[in-house]
């Protein structure tokens, strides 16, 4: 379970180290890079990254666990992040959560047994004009309704 960047990512990581005035500042970009590659951050990944950044794994974990976008446990192939903050809530976000929860038989925070979907309730995604908003992995799906969401989900590979 050891971790190493792919050749391409390694190049990008090295470039990061050159760009930032100190090593530690490259932590967040490096974490995004690693999580993007691995899906989530394992103990080994964190230890390796910490070493590359010249900090202790504890110190890196401190940073990781503060920021909600980093995951240290396996998650589904699709991260269904439903915004639940006021504007989305006014636009019916709760129903969207209920719908997904029912559709995949999971509660918020859980992953389907086949490892395909993780349902998360998240806070304001900064797209309140197109509420309700669901972010699936990196992509925003806006002004979603149950039907629209079904169509989107059905098209996912």
């Amino acid at each position, binding site marked *: 379970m050891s971790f190493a960047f792919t050749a391409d990512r390694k190049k990008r990581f090295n470039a990061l180290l050159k760009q930032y005035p100190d090593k530690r500042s490259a932590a967040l970009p490096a974490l995004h890079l690693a999580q993007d590659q691995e899906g989530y951050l394992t103990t080994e990944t964190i230890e390796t990254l910490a070493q590359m950044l010249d900090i202790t794994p504890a110190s890196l974990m401190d940073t990781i666990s503060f920021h909600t976008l980093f995951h240290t446990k396996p998650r589904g192939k699709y991260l269904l992040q439903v915004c639940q903050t006021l*504007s989305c809530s006014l636009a019916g976000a709760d129903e969207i959560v209920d719908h997904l929860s029912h559709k995949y038989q999971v509660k918020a925070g859980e992953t389907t047994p086949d490892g395909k979907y993780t349902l998360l309730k998240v806070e304001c995604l900064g797209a309140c004009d197109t509420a309700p908003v669901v972010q699936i992995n990196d992509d925003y799906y806006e002004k979603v309704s149950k039907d629209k969401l079904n169509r989107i989900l059905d098209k996912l590979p």
Partner: protein
Amino acid sequence: MSDYQPILTMHAGQPGSATRDYYLANGGYRAARRAVLDMNSDDIIQMVKYSNLQGRGGAGFPAGVKWSFVPRDDKRAKYLICNADEGEPGTFKDRMLINHNPHQLIEGMIIASRAIDCHLAFIYIRGEFAKEARLLEAAVEECRASNILGKKIFGGKYDLDILVYRGGGAYICGEEMALIESLEGKRGWPRIKPPFPAIEGYLRCPTIVNNVETLSNLPHIVNNGAEWFRGIGASPDSPGPKLYCLSGHVRKPGVYEAPMGTKLTTLIFTHAGGTTEGKKLKAAIPGGSSAPVLTADEIEDLKMDFPSLTAAGSMLGSGGIIVMDETTDMVQACYNLARFYAHESCGQCTPCREGTTWLTKVLRRFTQGRGRMEDIDLIGDITDNIGGLCDFSKGSFGKTICPFGEAVSWPIRAFMDKFRDEFEAYLPKEEAA
């Protein structure tokens, strides 16, 4: 609508508006070129000071004045950080500016960098905006390829590079000191001020943090002059174009550019087409979720600029307007925000860490019909204990390191005070009697 011609969003919706070539073809980077080749730091600071451009990130601090705090003749590197963390519920203007015109922002950053003698600037963009981050990176790349960024830009003597930095998901990282910690690869725990970032910020070097919208104004100020800028809007003390974000119960939610000081009712009923299904307006949050909610009565004739909103007991904040019609359950809305703040408290200060969750738990009990009469006072007390007494006329009285404490207390308190009857209606029968 009025005859106001959009400035910041004039190219929004045009095909290719996000590309360098489009931008250049429409007069882009003239201002930056001028700032780099023909102006010195003092010229720019004086100009921006005179323009009265106030920060659009929330606090409304005059940008030029902030820049003038950066120590001169200081051997340390200086840094500019563009705050694109945009996390305040109800706010989505920076995303729009980035999507439609990233080069306007980059140009603004070149001007600001030049003013404070910065050679490495950052765009701290919230992690969820992955697409926007890629777009900005592409824009930066275009600039590097054409001597707009890099060494000796525009053929002069000035070097500048910009790095796009994706956050990791934390509202508090929009607070400038938390942002700086996060940029340093640490948890986003705000630092104690003073020292202010202009004196000791990123890597303990002088650092200026400005919002996307603030920076996007700069090319226009340099091109058209400070006097021109002061003439936009209702008052030269708080002038300029402003992006207002309308969401909630309105027919046409979206970002609307209008002169600073435009009436809130105009924005709601003219720009955004009125309430959904024409229902009666109950209330609106005028400046992002941290701004105390205003009732329909309070909104009459209210001008949307920094001083007017402060006078009305709220704030312009980020310009995020959340509209609520008569169907809105204000207890649920209040609980929704309390939960947001509890989730986002960084947990450093005792009152904020413990108080936000306590509030949420009490409010949740309320929404479940298990409230107690004394909880109403308790909620008031807890908010006071986190954010200090809510008295806008006397300034901020928070008891926490950063203004998050106030940002959670004031809105909750306003909900309670202004819609007390709705809270009481939630009490179980025995309690209400």
